[in-house]
């Protein structure tokens, strides 16, 4: 084969390996021969031009008089002509290992960009969130913001536990729902709303009330338990179940303008029972329905719960474990109480006496109340609104006492039928105003507070005391629908 003289022009990075030459003259028949000759003349170049198999490396682009050799018919077997110039121009390329994002879909990569950007979260953290399973007990005021933020954050599986339907009074704070959802089961509507927020989240629906019978079976499937229920039986139930299952329990509670949040992790620190060994007597602490709650407050506390859940999953920062955060919305103060594990705690202590779930309604005194209502020979009477109405129409005049708070009277009132107002907290100090001989009928919103007070009055020497069953709301439903319920 005839050879001819050709000039090979080297790219800057390769020149030091060719003793600094910009161009190298070789004598060769084809382009391939020329490159071989170049590698022979400057052996340090060889491994950078050719792979171990002798193929040209991917980044080596060879141009013959401005034509890229790969595009020529005979490629590097192209014959050289006199005075041809061969130019090596590199491509610069590379790539990142492809396996790192395994488990996250392409849409998720962008969706969680602001998370992944945080070194404390990153890819690993986001994948942890996706693998996490969080139980949300109660899809209401606290559960709404908590579940929305957890879904948006990419928590892979959310279990929603709630047996309620959406009520008009919910919409002031339960931001999972809209007016169209009225009357619909909360769990179904919440699942739909959360899917709109993030279709990658798997929602497991539990349209049931958490009970001693089903709690362990449901909660054992989750890594973290978030309690958004705000009632004592469920709170003790969830706490005890979390301790027994060795899972963290993220607590939140709201009342009027104040909120609380904490993380109870029986494995490492105090549980809810270390803080409150027993619930307060029923009726003493009004719930949100009775006492009211500022609608935005569960938004704050529920978000704090979501925050703590995410920190627990990611294992970053300091959680509220061992601390109780107290929020006063009106004065805008956050306070913090240090919590100690109680070695004598009946559920997480050194010698626990509670080793399985108990009857939490009974434990919280609710069963006693029901029993008192049904077996009343020695207690107060229960008086249905219709019965009271009939007796009022017949000209009877029992003393009607509305024990609700002043602001509740603005919503609905029985003043028109002669009800007096003595708020619950004042009653004890104003017993002197009441005649022990007269029949007293106590009224509140649902009959819960007034029932507790009726028992108290009966025990205090008022033999003819009755409780308006179902409260003013029941009166509205069965006697006077013009009164709003709340």
């Amino acid at each position, binding site marked *: 084969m005839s050879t001819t003289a050709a000039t090979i022009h080297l*790219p*800057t*990075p*390769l020149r*030091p*390996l060719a003793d600094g030459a910009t161009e190298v003259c070789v004598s060769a028949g084809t382009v391939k021969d020329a490159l071989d000759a170049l590698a022979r003349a400057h052996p*340090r170049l060889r*491994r*950078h031009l050719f792979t171990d198999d002798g193929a040209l*490396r*991917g*980044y080596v*682009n060879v*141009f013959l008089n401005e034509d*890229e050799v790969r595009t020529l018919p005979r490629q590097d077997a192209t014959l050289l002509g006199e005075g041809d110039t061969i130019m090596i*121009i*590199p*491509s*610069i*390329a*590379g*790539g*990142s*290992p*492809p396996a*790192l*994002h395994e488990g996250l879909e*392409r849409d998720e*990569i*962008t969706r969680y*960009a602001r998370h*992944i*950007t945080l*070194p404390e979260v*990153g*890819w*690993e953290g986001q994948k942890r969130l996706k693998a996490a399973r969080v139980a949300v007990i109660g899809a209401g005021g606290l559960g709404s913001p908590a579940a929305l933020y957890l879904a948006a954050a990419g928590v892979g599986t959310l279990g929603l536990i709630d047996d309620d339907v959406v009520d008009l009074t919910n919409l002031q704070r339960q931001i999972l729902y809209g007016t169209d959802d009225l009357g619909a089961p909360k769990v179904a509507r919440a699942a739909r709303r959360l899917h709109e927020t993030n279709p990658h989240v798997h929602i497991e629906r539990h349209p049931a009330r958490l009970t001693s019978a089903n709690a362990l079976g449901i909660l054992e499937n989750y890594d973290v338990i978030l309690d958004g229920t705000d009632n004592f039986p469920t709170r003790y139930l969830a706490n005890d179940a979390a301790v027994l299952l060795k899972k963290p329990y993220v607590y939140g509670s709201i009342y009027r303008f104040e909120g609380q949040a904490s993380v109870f992790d029986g494995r490492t620190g105090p549980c809810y029972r270390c803080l409150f060994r027993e619930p307060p007597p029923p009726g003493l602490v009004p719930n949100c329905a009775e006492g009211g709650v500022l609608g935005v407050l569960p938004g704050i506390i529920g978000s704090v719960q979501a925050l703590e859940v995410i920190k627990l999953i990611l294992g970053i920062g300091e959680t509220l474990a061992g601390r109780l955060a107290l929020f006063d919305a009106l004065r805008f103060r956050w306070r913090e109480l240090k919590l100690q594990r109680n070695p004598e705690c009946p559920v997480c202590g050194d010698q626990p006496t509670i080793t399985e779930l108990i009857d939490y309604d009974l434990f919280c005194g609710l069963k006693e109340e029901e029993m008192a209502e049904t077996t009343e020979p020695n207690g107060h009477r229960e008086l249905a609104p219709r019965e009271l109405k009939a007796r009022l129409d017949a000209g009877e005049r029992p003393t009607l006492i509305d024990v609700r708070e002043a602001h509740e009277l603005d919503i609905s009132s029985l003043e028109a039928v002669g009800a007096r107002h003595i708020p619950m907290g004042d009653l004890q100090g104003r017993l002197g105003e009441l005649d022990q001989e007269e029949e007293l009928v106590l009224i509140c919103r649902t009959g819960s507070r007034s029932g507790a007070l009726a028992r108290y009055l009966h025990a205090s020497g008022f033999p003819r005391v009755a409780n308006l069953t179902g409260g003013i709301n029941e009166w509205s439903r069965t006697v006077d629908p013009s009164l709003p319920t709340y």
Partner: protein
Amino acid sequence: MAPAVRAAIRAAAAAAWPAECCGALVGVADNAGGTKVACALPASNEAEDTLHAFRMGPEAVRELEAAAAEQGAEVVGYYHSHPEGAGAAPSATDLEWALPGLIYVIAGAEGHELRAWRLREDRSGFDELTP
């Protein structure tokens, strides 16, 4: 590497995210035998899968070199990003495609981490350069 260059690479990585960014490092040799990177020239990523790869073809390389020459400097290396949190260490693909002598600056996810590397002459791996 001048702070402005670091900032420019970080900004390019963030702007390209979740794709990889790439570009040239323009600089001059200093008196102490080292190299001073004076500016970063962005280039478009010609890879097919820009989420996991970058590529500047020969035309782009020639243009970058010409742009550097206009400034009386030369291309002393290239930068790219690893958007998926792979960190700022070179990947196996980076090793396969690396040229000797050049400075390779790699930005970790959105540019948190910047590290500089140079291919060993025997292609056994990279040596990290101190900034």
